[in-house]
């Protein structure tokens, strides 16, 4: 499963996306656990980051499939100061 990263998470991982081994499907909560285990650099941030699935905000009991577009990012800070 490929996960897009933005802002602090991208900098911390040193890459715009990471791969997480996940067969079939899992919940967003399980996905967070796997990211923390497989990418220790993100472990500290992953719990308070936002997960988006197919360009919609996703929550811990939502299900993610390997074919979904998945992204991980901090609370948004765009617009203006």
């Amino acid at each position, binding site marked *: 499963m490929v996960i897009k990263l933005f802002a*602090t998470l991208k900098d911390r991982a040193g890459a715009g996306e990471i791969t997480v081994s996940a067969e079939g499907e899992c919940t967003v909560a399980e996905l967070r656990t796997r990211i923390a285990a497989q990418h220790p650099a993100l472990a500290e941030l992953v719990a308070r980051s936002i997960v988006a699935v197919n360009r*919609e*905000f996703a929550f811990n009991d939502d299900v993610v499939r390997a074919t979904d577009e998945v*992204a991980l990012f901090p*609370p*948004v*800070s*765009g617009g203006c100061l």
Partner: protein
Amino acid sequence: MSEPTIVRITTDPIDLNALQRAVTTPRDGAVVLFTGTVRGVTGAERTEKLEYEAYTEMAMAKLRQVADEMRAKFALIHGIALVQRVGEMAVGEPTVAVVVSAGHRGDGAFEAARYGIDRLKQIVPVWKKETRPDGSAWVEGDYVPSRGD
């Protein structure tokens, strides 16, 4: 009559004159434009520049959602433009624009523009990295989306 809805994530400078023309229909007598700018001075802090990054595909979808919410809440407004600039911007430059046209100034264009920028800052996935004299860092927002956002 058509009601223009423009949503855009762009590296180009924001052109307020062009946005005013683009949203104004022949029925419109009032246009409200909000623009966020790079603030250089905040209390004792100095900002030298900002760099904006977007999750472009989702940001476009969320800008469309903000426009839909504006139309649902402010029934008398006509044209809408929501533009987020990304890339590097200097102090004073517009980073974002929310533009709303309506027949009369009392038809909700002021309120819709305010709602639009508030909502954009909550749900549109864009982040800024601030460069100060002592280094640069990503700025994190504080809004945590819930179901329905």
